[in-house]
């Protein structure tokens, strides 16, 4: 048996699976769920990315939708998503008590000023998936995803929920990127969601939805970025009778309360 770092076996019992897939009308949908990366691969990834990866990095996880006949495919993986995180520190957020902390600190330690490796540590990404094959490519459209077809209780033939990365922001909130996919007999929907809560500061939800109509080969991709200050959300929730802390942890509930800051709609046909 191969041994990994620190000498323990690589093949310890692992949650998840090496890969499951379903094929419908020539579209093959695959998911892969493995544990977080170990020290070696993380180091490698840090080097390639130029930033420290999130604390929980599911670097082997994957969701792909592939049209076998033409080889067209869209893939969701952690590395490509993280490669789109700001690496300069320009878009950097500060934790809620940062001002207070720094005021006290600057008096005590004038020599400790250097911010170590600044980057967007909230791991905010506008990732919309990776499309390695250039043709056909997404074009802007006004055709929305047909929600009425998705609201029908068609049987779900395949479902998975795959985490790509998660970070606790050093106990200042949460940032996570995950992908859900459901395949019905005639169509499928994929949702790649980035969710971030910086305690007492900011909420962010960035959704990429990919809709595929199998018979026509039509693929619609919709991206919506939402953002709101925590205080504004708290005020809005206070007007309701709901359990505020629970609501603040539920992205589905929160999405309605956040303002849309960016949006795009694209379409292509693989056939």
């Amino acid at each position, binding site marked *: *048996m191969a*041994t*990994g*770092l*620190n*000498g*323990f*076996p690589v093949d310890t*019992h692992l*949650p*998840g699976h090496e890969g499951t897939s379903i094929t419908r009308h020539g579209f093959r949908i695959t998911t892969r769920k*493995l*544990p*977080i*990366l*170990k*020290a*070696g691969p993380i180091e490698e990834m840090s080097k390639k990315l130029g930033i420290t990866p999130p*604390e*929980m990095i599911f670097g082997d996880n994957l969701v792909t939708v592939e049209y076998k006949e033409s080889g067209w495919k869209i893939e969701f993986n952690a590395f490509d998503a993280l490669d789109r995180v700001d690496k300069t*520190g320009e878009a*950097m*957020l*500060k*934790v809620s*008590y*940062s001002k*207070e*902390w*720094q005021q*006290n*600190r600057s008096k*005590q*330690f004038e020599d*400790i*000023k*250097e*911010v*170590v*490796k*600044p*980057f967007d*540590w909230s791991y905010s990404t506008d990732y919309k998936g990776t499309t390695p094959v250039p043709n056909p490519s997404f074009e802007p459209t006004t055709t929305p995803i047909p*929600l009425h077809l*998705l*609201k029908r*209780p068609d049987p*779900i033939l395949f*479902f*998975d*929920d795959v*985490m790509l990365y998660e970070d606790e*922001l*050093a*106990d*200042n909130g949460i940032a996570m990127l995950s992908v859900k996919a*459901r395949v019905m007999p005639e169509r499928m*929907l994929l*949702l790649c969601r980035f969710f971030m809560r910086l305690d007492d500061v900011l909420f962010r939800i960035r959704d990429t939805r990919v809709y595929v109509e199998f018979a026509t080969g039509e693929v619609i991709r919709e991206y919506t970025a939402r953002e709101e200050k925590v205080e504004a959300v708290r005020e809005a929730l206070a007007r309701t009778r709901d359990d505020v*802390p629970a609501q603040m942890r539920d992205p589905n509930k929160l999405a309605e309360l956040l303002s849309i800051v960016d949006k795009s709609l694209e379409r292509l046909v693989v056939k």
Partner: protein
Amino acid sequence: MSIGGSDLDQAILQLRACRPIPESQVRELCYKARELLIEEGNVVGVDAPVTICGDIHGQFHDLMELFRVGGDVPDTNYLFMGDFVDRGFYSLESFLLLLCLKVRYPDRITLIRGNHESRQITTVYGFYDECLRKYGSANVWRYCCEVFDYLALGALVSGAATTLEPSDAPFADLNSQASMPGLDQEIEIETLNASGEVMFRFARNSEQSSSAAEPSQNPSSSPLPTPARTGAPGTGASSSSYGSMGSSTGAVLCVHGGLSPLIDTIDKIRLLDRKQEVPHEGAMCDLLWSDPDEIDGWGLSPRGAGFLFGADIVKCFNYKNDLSLIARAHQLVMEGFKEMFDSTIVTVWSAPNYCYRCGNVAAILELGEDGGNGGFVSRANGDVNRAQVLGEKVQGREGPGRRYRVFDAAPQDSRGMPAKKPVADYFL
């Protein structure tokens, strides 16, 4: 009602079965625990042998697995470096069991404070909600928070052996046996799996050290030599040898997060007023929050609060305080432990499959008892002026012999909950 003697044993039995104890008993237990903890200094003195554990985070069944792998209390002495609560589903049972064991066997178990042992953090990350759910009121949460304020900030382990008595255990992988040091050599590091099989063994002063170690001639200009990392990947084992001290090792400082620029001696930790909520800044905050990083000196976290410290800071601190190692927790490490900076600091992580989805392994660190090697002078608890070593020409201390036991999450069926499969939903 009181919680002495048999009541306490009864409570331990109940908590071991993962069943909460009544609110009145929690109140009594917390009162007893506070009486006990108030007598402890900010830095608790602990004698080897001891088993050092990192974050637990309410993963009760994995804590049971930890005791199975490491030995039960009171047969094994334990030192838990905080973050007992939050994240997992059983913060309450985990913390109360540890507290019961502390009250029942005060000399066998040491609990120090993590950054999650705080009112503010527990309201956001689960423990508060759990108490509310299990008792219908926040009283139990309040009792526990009062205990948090009395937990020590660190521990100082003395009397640890420099070399390990090699485990008389089979090898996990017979093929690797040949490449491991023989039993005639001094063992510095040993890694065992949950079945107690040897996965890895590393000798001190093995052949690698001859090329790596240049014994430091002038500790003032260069506090410690920095030999190449020649140990197993991930252990950072350097096998650096500083002369032929052989038998004695410095003390091991245990703290949840790390160092603080306000603290250059352990005595300064002893002077803090710890009986309060974890503040947002100051030395007490740093000890519970800071992280080591591959930098020079001190740095500010990009998050806008919190310190990072480099190898030079650790080496100077260890040298100045006559430490051979700093053990800390606070950061998830996939292999369960991670030695850094030529094995001058180690992160120990004891929550396997963290948050029930990471798939990581956990580890505990065993330090053996110095078997009368002569070189070691045991210290009184608490009042030694460690700064004295500054004047002496002392070279960096050899690290203690370290036995890591690595373990997986408890089997799913022992948790009484079904394996988590994603439930198909009509998301939009």
